[in-house]
């Protein structure tokens, strides 16, 4: 089904009772050219790019629950390309450019909203660091503007400019950043991939790998039976170590929980995305009016998809520090998601030492914005067996070679990235 103003008008006239399912809920075949494990944003995007860009359509996406039940449906939907290090800068901009044409490519309204991402700074040192990051972005052709306090006072008069310890002095703004509707991104890729013949198979948990005499992966064991595969790609964010272990691999990754929070709906207040620079708090406002916000990960290994109170308190304190008036808004909902925290805070996309098995992992808390870019470069790797140039530094062996991409300079301590 093709969506347009006309299909909308037609459906409206019939009381919206004529809408069809937007993608096929497939049953597994015996064999596929490529099997993708994980029906989150990355897995589905990979399948769509394989089919649309690289002409490989005999593809299945296997999802243990329902598509979008993992982080794709739990994140705070921020998209941006304001990274400072080689490897990340170009990759996230590739992804941003794909966000800008996603809705046309997929014929699906993903509510991509480029209303700006603003990182506040609170000291002279931080201003200089942000100026440097902005310059890095600009010499790479990415938009960035350093705003001073006077400019912010006009834009966001409610900020706590005179906070005793962390006065808001200004901010680094990427206007092309913003948010997208996370569920719609999942459904959009499913819609477009399914239309090109990709099988999306839910309630299908991968429980093991099938290997030939040489150790090459030739398929997967699943809760819905054995499925043969020419190649297998893992995109199981948060569960990467568990799935890799089935192939006898260990990864430079720890699984951690990140929480997200939504307040009751209020009138339009926050125009874009804002982050507190002296603690960890970021916020945007959804179209329904709720403030969507979050902060640090809880900080200990977890597979529980459930957060704890001290971080909630810390996040709310961060919010109060920059926007004191939100203290009067009530919290409506809170949840957690399990993410791969990698040893340098950057993702891993590569072949693995196991023949036929490919890895897409380590997205930390920033993988939503990467969804289209990750799908594209992973599909490139699966189809051509070579890294896309914008993902060339995300190799798995970079830790061994000392070629880490550590934006925060924290070292090999995953809970600090």
């Amino acid at each position, binding site marked *: 089904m093709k969506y347009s103003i006309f299909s909308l008008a037609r459906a409206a006239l019939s009381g919206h009772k004529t809408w069809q399912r937007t993608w096929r809920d497939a049953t597994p075949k015996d064999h596929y050219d490529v099997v993708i494990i994980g029906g989150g944003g990355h897995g589905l995007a990979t399948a769509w790019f394989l089919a649309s860009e690289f002409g490989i359509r005999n593809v299945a996406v296997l999802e243990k629950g329902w598509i979008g039940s993992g982080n794709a449906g739990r994140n705070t939907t921020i998209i941006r390309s304001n990274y400072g290090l080689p490897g990340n800068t170009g990759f996230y901009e590739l992804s941003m450019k794909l966000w800008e044409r996603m809705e046309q490519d997929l014929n699906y309204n993903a509510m991509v909203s480029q209303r700006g991402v603003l990182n506040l700074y609170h000291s002279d040192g931080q201003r200089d660091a942000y100026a440097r990051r902005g310059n890095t972005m600009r010499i790479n052709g990415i938009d960035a503007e350093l705003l001073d306090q006077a400019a912010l006072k006009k834009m966001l008069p409610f900020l706590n400019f005179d906070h005793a310890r962390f006065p808001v002095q200004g901010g680094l703004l990427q206007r092309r950043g913003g948010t997208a509707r996370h569920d719609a991104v999942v459904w959009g890729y499913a819609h477009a991939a399914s239309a090109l013949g990709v099988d999306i198979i839910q309630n299908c948990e991968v429980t093991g790998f099938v290997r030939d005499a040489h150790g090459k992966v030739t398929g997967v064991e699943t809760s819905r039976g054995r499925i043969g595969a020419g190649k297998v790609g893992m995109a199981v964010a948060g569960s990467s*170590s*568990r799935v890799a272990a089935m192939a006898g691999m*260990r*990864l*430079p*990754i*720890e*699984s951690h929980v990140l929480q997200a929070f939504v307040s009751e709906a209020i009138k339009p207040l926050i125009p874009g995305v804002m982050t507190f620079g002296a603690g960890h708090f970021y916020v945007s406002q959804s179209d329904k009016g709720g403030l969507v916000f979050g902060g640090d990960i809880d*900080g*200990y*290994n*977890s*597979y*529980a998809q*459930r957060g*704890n*109170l*001290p971080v909630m*308190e810390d996040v709310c304190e961060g919010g109060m520090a920059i926007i004191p008036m939100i203290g009067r808004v009530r919290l409506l909902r809170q949840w957690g998601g399990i993410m791969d925290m990698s*040893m340098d805070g950057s993702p891993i996309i590569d072949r693995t030492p196991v023949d036929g098995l490919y890895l897409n992992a380590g997205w930390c808390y920033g993988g939503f914005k990467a969804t289209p870019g990750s799908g594209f470069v992973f599909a490139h790797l699966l189809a051509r067996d070579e890294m896309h140039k914008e993902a060339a530094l995300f190799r798995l062996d970079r*830790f*061994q070679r000392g070629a880490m991409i550590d934006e925060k300079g924290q070292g*090999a*301590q*995953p*809970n600090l990235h």
Partner: protein
Amino acid sequence: MRIVCPFCGERELGEFTYLGDAKPQRPAADAGEDAVYDYVYMRDNIAGVMSENWYHGGGCRSWLKVTRNTLTHEISAVEAAAGAGAAKVGA
């Protein structure tokens, strides 16, 4: 989640800092690059019961060895980490 410190009693999570899996051991100085790489970067990332290092910075400032289930957050044992801080004094 609350942790029962063997020195301070039951305390809220905010008083503690997490280091991680207690299993990796620093290799000997002459162990070679692969052993160091393994120690610094590779993790079992256990889904289930794990032995972990926690620091009670908001209390007795001891390093603790906590046995915890990463699937449920249930803590089954807390002991002083060998040779650390208050563990020496208390023992």
